[in-house]
Each structure stands twice: as C-alpha cells, then as structure tokens.
C-alpha cells in the first residue's frame, strides 16, 4: 500500500487517520531495520515526528468532536421540565447580570 516515496515525501494533508496509523507503523518498522543495519536517515526521523504530531492533533480533534456530539445528544434527551429548568436558570443568570451592571 505504501512505499518509501510516500514516507520520504510525506504530505500528511493527503492522508486520512487510518493511513497515518499505517504509515506510522511502517516508519517504526523501517526505523528498527535501519538501526540494526546502519544509521537512521534524517528524513525518516523527520517523517516519524511529523506523523506523531499529526496523529496526536487528529486524536485531540476527534475527542473534542465526540465530546460535543455527546453533549448534543444529552440535550435531546432532556424532558420538558428539564428544559424549563434550564431556561429558568438562564433567566435568573441574566437578571442577576442586569442588576450587577445597574441597567
């Protein structure tokens, strides 16, 4: 699926999460082979770092997305009473704010 060229000319924007994972595994394997045979080339370390950074960023993004999804889902499960309570709380907060600024 991947060749050395993909890794040498790494462009993370063109790869989806699964491909990044696969390429990262390939890079680690390649690094281990280089270590046992000769010096690890600079481009391989650069690619490895770039892959790790992008994978971490995408995982953080995915977590943020999942969190928002779950909050949205929870919102749909609220009963009318819970929704009313939320509105009452927001009204109370706004009225308090209004008094503080003296409007």
């Amino acid at each position: 699926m991947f060749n050395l060229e993909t890794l040498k000319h790494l462009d993370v924007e063109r790869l989806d999460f699964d491909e990044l994972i696969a390429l990262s595994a390939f890079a680690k394997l390649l690094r281990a082979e280089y270590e046992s045979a000769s010096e690890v080339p600079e481009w391989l370390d650069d690619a490895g770092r770039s892959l790790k950074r992008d994978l971490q960023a995408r995982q953080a993004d995915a977590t943020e997305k999942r969190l928002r999804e779950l909050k949205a889902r929870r919102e749909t499960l609220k009963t009318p009473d819970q929704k009313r309570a939320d509105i009452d709380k927001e009204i109370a907060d706004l009225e308090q704010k209004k008094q503080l600024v003296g409007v």
Partner: protein
Amino acid sequence: MESGLTKNQIINVLSKSPHGKLEEYIPVGLQAAQHEPEFLAHLIAWNALKGQVRDARVALPIVTLACPSFPVAFVENSMAHLAALAPRDLLRAIKFSKSCPSAGLKGGRMRSFVEHYLRWREANWNQVSVMQHRGALRTLYTRFNVRPHALADQVICKGHPPDGTVFANVKQLANMSPVEAAGTIAAQRIPFLVARGALGKKASDPDLVMALIDRMSPTELVTNTKNLERLGVKTNPALRAAFEQALARAGSSKQNTLKTTVAAEAIDDETLKAKLSALQEKQLKAVGGVDGNWLVLGDKSPSMAETIELSRQVSATLAKLVRGRVHLVFFDDTARHINVTGKTYEQILAETAHVTAGGNGTSIGAGLRYALDSGIEVDGIAIVSDGGDNKPPAFFQCYADYCKKYDKAPPIYLYRTDTLPRWRVETERWCAMFIKFLADIGHEVNQFDLRAGIDYYSLPNLVQTMRVNRYSLVEEILDTPLLALDEVLKPTKELSHV
C-alpha cells in the same frame, strides 16, 4: 452498421455529461434505440451500475421509450430504470419526455406507472427519502391525480406532520438551541439539505456545522468544501475532525469523482486543495475498471497548449485507474517521455511544467516510434491531439511495427481536440487520413470528440470507458443483466408508520 454509429461511438457520446441539457442525448440515443436496441438496453443497465453521469440515467430510458420501433422486450428494462430513480430525478425524466419527438410513456400509461411508483413508496415508507424529495413527490401526486395515503397526505401534500415524528422535529429545528438541534440532526439522521433548509441562518453555529458535516453525502461534502472553510473547518478542532472523518467516508465513494475534480479546482486554500485532490485519487482507485499498461501520446506541436494540459489530466486519471504502468510521451516532430505510473496530477504537472507547445509540425508516429525504440510495451494507446499527423514517421507504419514487435494490437483512443480556425480544414484532412490509413490495415480508432470544448468534468468518465481489449467494454455492457420492474418495485408490504 446501418446507423453509421458503432457501439464504441454510442458509448463515447453517451458517456459525456451534457450538464443538465438532456436534449443532447436525443439524436444519438434515438439512433441507438432504433439500430442497436439490445445494446442500448444493456448500456442503460451498465450505466446505472458503473456510470458517473446522472443525466444519462435520467434521459436514456426516456429516449428508448420515445422510439416507436424500440422492441417491447426491452421496454420493461427502461421502465425499471425509471422506477429506480429518486423522485426528483423521475420528475426530471417526465419533464424531459415532453421534449422527445414521439409519444413514448405518456397519458394513461405514464399515470399508471407513476401511481405504481408512488404506491410502492408509500408501502416502503422511507422517511429520509421523503424528507429529501418532498417537493418532487407532492408534484407527482398532484400532476398525476394520485390520491395519497393518509400519512403521505399529511406529511407530503399538506405539510402537517403528526407530532413526535421526525418530520415534525425538522419543523422545530429552527426553534431549538443549537446544541439540541445538532443532537436531533444526528439522532434522527436528518439529511444535510433538509436540515440546512430548516435551520436557516442558524446553520453556521459550530455545533450545527459539525452535525451537518456528519450528514453530508460525499457529493455534498465536496461541493460545500469552500463554504465549510469559511465556517471554520480548518480552525475549529471539532469541525476539523468532522471534516476529516467525512473525507475518509467519501474516499470509498464511486459516485462523485467528477464533482470532486471541479470542487478541487474551485478551492484556493492549498491544504484543502490537497485534501480534495487526495480524495479524488481514492475515488478513482475505487472506480477502477481499466486494466493493463497504457501509453498516452500528448500533442505539443504549435497551438496545442490546451492539449498539453489535457494530456496531463488523462495521464493522471489513468495513473489512478489502472494497476499497470502509464507512460506519457509528448510529441511534436520529436518525443519526450515521462513515466507517470502511480503519480498524482500535481506530480505530473511539476515534471512537465516546462513542456510548451512548439516544434516543427505534428508527428504522432514520433511518439509511438519513441515507445517502440525504448522497449515500452503497452496494452492500450491514448492519443491526445487534433489528429493533424503531418510529419514522418507516419503513425500507421509505426503502429504496424509495434503490433509486429509485441505480437498484439493495442486499441487506440483519440481524444480529438480543436485546432486554430485557419488550420481546421487542413487538420481535418490529415486526421481523416490518419484514421483511414489505420482502417486500411484493419485497426479502428475510438474517438472522443472534444472539438467543441474540453470538459474536464466528464474526463474521468471517458477514461473509465477505455479498455485494453477493444471488445471488452462492449462485452461487459452486453453482459450486464437487464432489470425487471418487479426487482425495483418489489411486491408491497403493509404501510409501516414512522
């Protein structure tokens, strides 16, 4: 053949996108329906499975029904493919039938067909489909005087859905908080277009953008990428993740490679352009279908600047569609070779950036001679040129040598481009000779006529029809089973409510 049209010509003409102008299918479609009815019936079936142009799915069945001599044995196939259309497309097909010259499926037969279609949809109630096609369904009910079932009447015709249904929730979306609306869209799987329409200006809230991205089809995703950029898909982490996940899902889609090409061109942002370009490559790979090794002969003779770009595009598309090797050879009266196997359009562009139109004439043979002398063995040849083969070595001689050396006759496809007005008459003559000389030694040239303008939108569809065996696509089409009406509108069951 009586009609003067070969099967390959029928495929070539009907593979192009008329961009909504369905009338463009009538002349060739009617000829094919009259002289090659069995082939056209199978082509309709093949196009429904493998074709990329939706217009052809809408227009071709109607064209066959408008042909008085179209055999009854194939009429059911046409009807079945009409029945397989979504309501919006069926309505387009019915409107298009009015511009066809003959009666076809009109009057009582059409009403009875539409009633059968609507009754089947009532019995197989699909709320997502109803949401997406409510307007078209309402038009079908009213235009053909079909009395809707109670639920269909409430939801589709009167627009008063029962409380607690997804249809009622869609109406409430605009009154919900963004977070609740996002949750509702996700939980009830409300289609993107329906949700966006119901939300109005609220749709730009990040929670809602995230939910909408998740509900986009691959085509909707690529056509809305520019808007999504404006809404923060590059800067907001949750939106970034939603976009990445949607791109990964779209990667396996075979339906929208053409739109991805257009969308990628319209994007200025380099990151998003790269993402769409990578998506297009994955979609082309998913389409597949073209085998063997290919040689693309690109004309770079004087005035052929546009042909150079077209050669890059054809090579890049082939490089993704085929598993074999792809060689690009630019020629004027000399030749220059680039191995483009597995390369992206951007890589090919970078390698050929300095290739410009020039030289001392056009020798398509020079390109093939280069391949012959360099030992480049291929199974198919795509020539991108105006066909004005006016300098030695002559192509037909080189081709004969090539066939002899490799003991095979690779099929020849000519992407025929226009030339300068002052050279048109002469080029026409050279091209006719080019084709005749090959015909004289028993070889056909399959032409994609692009003289009226190059439509990059249709290009992947044309490339997809190329085959290393000149008869294999025709065989593949003829092997595609015809469709029966009962296979589409399967026996009905009781109406299931939402």
